[in-house]
């Protein structure tokens, strides 16, 4: 720990003097992924697990490469991503609006507290029978589960973000006669934005998880369903290839959210700290 902190202390200098030679972020990320795949490859080789049940990374990657050539695979990815995108979008908008409303009113904050805390830990998985009953195997079932799970993540982040508004900034807005809506738009929203971005990043992967879980347990088409098929067909490498694909989707989603974050939070210490020497 000490070492890490130490490095940070002189970090500014390092960054400045070694700037041209600094390893690009993407390369470092790739190294991380390779280390992970290497460790996975070694697990069966070292006999920690049996290769029959957890095939080495190379075998799984080969199976994935095979999948990549199949239209069925891409159709499944498309199905999953559709549910993901719609569910996430609805959850974020809903949570954002409600979060701002609740967060800015001490009354609503207290009034809804117990209910929110009661509803939050209800597993989406437990709602499957209800979802199926309401919507059958249609996409709406997946959406219900996705929205339910993601909504709380974003909501909590928004509530904490709203509470973080700087007094002086808020007083400035009030003294210049900003209306309620203007204060939300010009002061509360930007302050909350970093929290929201974390919420979206959390929710994005939860949405992916739920999209796949729903397909897994309800049987609507998509990657999750392909996983069940591979499982019940005893195609182990094929199953892990699909899981790997899921993981890569997660990485991809993160790259996108990072790019967005870099744009919308360029002013924030968390992002600007990275850019200045």
């Amino acid at each position: 720990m000490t070492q890490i902190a130490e490095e940070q202390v002189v970090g500014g200098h390092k960054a400045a003097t070694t700037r041209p030679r600094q390893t690009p972020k993407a390369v470092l990320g790739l190294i991380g992924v390779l280390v992970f795949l290497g460790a996975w490859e070694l697990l069966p080789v070292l006999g920690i697990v049996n290769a029959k049940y957890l095939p080495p990374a190379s075998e799984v990657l080969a199976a994935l490469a095979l999948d990549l050539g199949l239209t069925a695979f891409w159709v499944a990815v498309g199905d999953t991503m559709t549910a993901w995108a719609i569910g996430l979008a609805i959850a974020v908008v809903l949570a954002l609006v409600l979060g701002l409303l609740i967060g800015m009113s001490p009354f609503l904050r207290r009034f809804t507290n117990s209910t929110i805390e009661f509803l939050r830990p209800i597993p989406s998985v437990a709602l499957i029978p209800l979802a199926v009953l309401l919507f059958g195997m249609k996409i709406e079932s997946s959406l219900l589960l996705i929205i339910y799970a993601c909504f709380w993540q974003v909501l909590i982040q928004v509530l904490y973000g709203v509470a973080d508004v700087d007094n002086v900034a808020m007083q400035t807005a009030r003294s210049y006669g900003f209306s309620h809506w203007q204060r939300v738009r010009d002061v509360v929203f930007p302050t909350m934005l970093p929290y929201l971005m974390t919420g979206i990043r959390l929710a994005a992967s939860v949405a992916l998880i739920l999209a796949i879980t729903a397909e897994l347990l309800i049987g609507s088409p998509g990657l999750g369903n392909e996983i069940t098929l591979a499982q019940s067909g005893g195609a182990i490498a094929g199953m892990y290839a699909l899981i790997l694909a899921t993981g890569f989707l997660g990485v991809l989603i993160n790259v996108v959210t990072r790019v967005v974050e870099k744009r919308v939070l360029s002013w924030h210490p968390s992002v600007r700290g990275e850019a200045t020497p």
Partner: protein
Amino acid sequence: MQSENPTSHAGGRTLPDGEALLSVRNLKKVYRTDAGDIEAVRNLTFDLGRGELVCLVGPSGSGKTTLLKCIAGLLASTEGEVRLDGQVITGPPKKMAVVFQEYGRSLFPWLRVAENVELPLKNAGVPKNERKVLVEQALEAVGLAHVPKSYPWQLSGGMQQRVAIARAVAYQPEVLLMDEPFAAVDAQTRADLEDLIRSVWKKLGVTVLFVTHDIDESIYLGERVIILSSSPTVVQEDIVIDLPAERDQLETRSLPRFTELRHHVYAEIQKAKQGHRPEEAITMVAK
């Protein structure tokens, strides 16, 4: 030569009903904290006429910022009241601008300099091209016309403070409250900004309440100077500054009357610091 003693009131000057734009009456503010109550202001009473430029001085921690926030409708008073145009203030009134002591935190870090200055105008519904002119003029006036596209955190302390001033000036308020607005700028810039405030005040007829620690500045700027006592805070003295209306950095400051006033205020503050309290205030405290 004028009389040695400046026209002054121990306790704040009050105006007849209807003449005051802003009246502060028996204002008391106690902050409640976990560790106990902190009395920031004990009892303040004074009036500001329409279009007056009044400076407020007082020891550090005497409650100037607190008073300003109460006037701005940002803090609820514990006792007493503040009236604007006869109306008790319960929230920030319209057409009022405040320059906060914590200038750094009062700028929005997510907006660029010009956007920060523009935002209140935008929210007030000023048309776009008019806004553009106002923003440019204000930035020009505070000497920041060259950095409209920078973010506040890319500016030096003094520059940030000037952005906050530009924002207030561009807003063209009717009441302008400024809390040590020139604390972070150099002497020369300070002089320029003093003249800027005087000219804005003259041009727009705005009512200004100006907190400062610089006694020369308070005299050079103000038509009146209110001196707060040290805690528990009351008005120590309220002095009329009988200097000519046209002021000039070199000329005005070298007037004998300027020096006289300066000495007077200095002595009063020193008394305040040493715990001397005006009689009225003491009786008020006693009862």
